[in-house]
């Protein structure tokens, strides 16, 4: 089934109709979605900035990551669940949005970057994680993550202006 047909089907579901009908539910979802993304990006940046030598630079990297990660996931779950519902509500419009596609791509890249970081450099974090100056590859991962998430926030904003104006 082509993606557009799927989006059209999605928009005809009672769930999609229900969200569109109530401006209170819709704005409520948008509010939780924004809170979720702020929680996700805000906490990820703290780790990124630590890798780049800012913020919690006197704490071990693994300490920062382990203690902050549960909150990143909380934010991500909030963001993902409300995001999916918002997508249901306006699937066809969002399907046509270039900003939305860029946003999805950036989230994917951010995820890949995090995965690679965890599977490679971070494995040896016990040897370098105590120093405030981290290895170049860890710094690169931090910089990429920081950039991708800035892009996600920006692209997210752009969807609203692209679709609703």
């Amino acid at each position, binding site marked *: 089934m082509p993606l557009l047909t799927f989006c059209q089907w999605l928009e005809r579901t009672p769930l999609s109709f229900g969200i569109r009908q109530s*401006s*209170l539910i819709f*704005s409520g979802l*948008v*509010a939780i979605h*924004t*809170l979720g*993304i*702020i*929680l996700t*990006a*805000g*906490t990820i*940046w*703290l780790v990124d*900035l630590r890798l780049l030598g*800012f*913020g*919690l*630079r*006197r*704490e071990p990297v693994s*300490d*920062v990551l382990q*203690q*902050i990660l549960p*909150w990143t996931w909380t934010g991500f779950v909030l963001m993902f669940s409300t995001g999916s519902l918002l997508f249901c509500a306006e699937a066809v419009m969002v399907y046509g949005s270039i900003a939305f596609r860029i946003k999805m791509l950036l989230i994917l890249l951010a995820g890949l970057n995090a995965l690679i970081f965890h599977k490679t450099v971070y494995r040896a974090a016990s040897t370098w994680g105590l120093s405030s100056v981290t290895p170049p590859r860890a710094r690169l991962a931090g910089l990429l993550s920081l950039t991708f998430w*800035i892009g996600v*926030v*920006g692209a997210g*904003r*752009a969807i*609203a*202006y692209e679709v609703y*104006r």
Partner: protein
Amino acid sequence: MSTFSLFQWLDHTPLGEALRSNRVLFPLVSSIHLLGLALLVGTILVVDLGLVGAGMRRQPISRVAGQLEPLTWTGLAVMLITGPMLLTGEAIKMYCNWAFWIKLVFVALAIAFYFTVHRKATSAGSSITPARAKSVGIVSLTLWICAGLAAKSINAFTP
């Protein structure tokens, strides 16, 4: 000068005109505003959760707060610069929007709380009891979340 004429004047500044006529400018500045918020909230959240006993528990909270302070201030500065910029783009609209005024009140309260009670509770020599620390964390979190929710309501309640 009345508040309304101040807002009228803001609406007519060159920046306000530019924000309205240029399609890219407003989303751009509003994205930077949101980035500032994420930095501000991310850092304050970690400290507040620490006060509540749920965030970074392995480190003393004053140590965490001390290291994060420059980042919090950066986020706050970004917001305080981009916020009024955005206001010039839709000053009259905001004047008529009650969610905007509620947001301003919460932002003012949250900032005042941050620089007084919060700062004292997270300073190095603080002898605050865990129960007190917990309530400081909860109050701070509540104020910032309310400011955020009021901000999101601005669009929802625009006539």
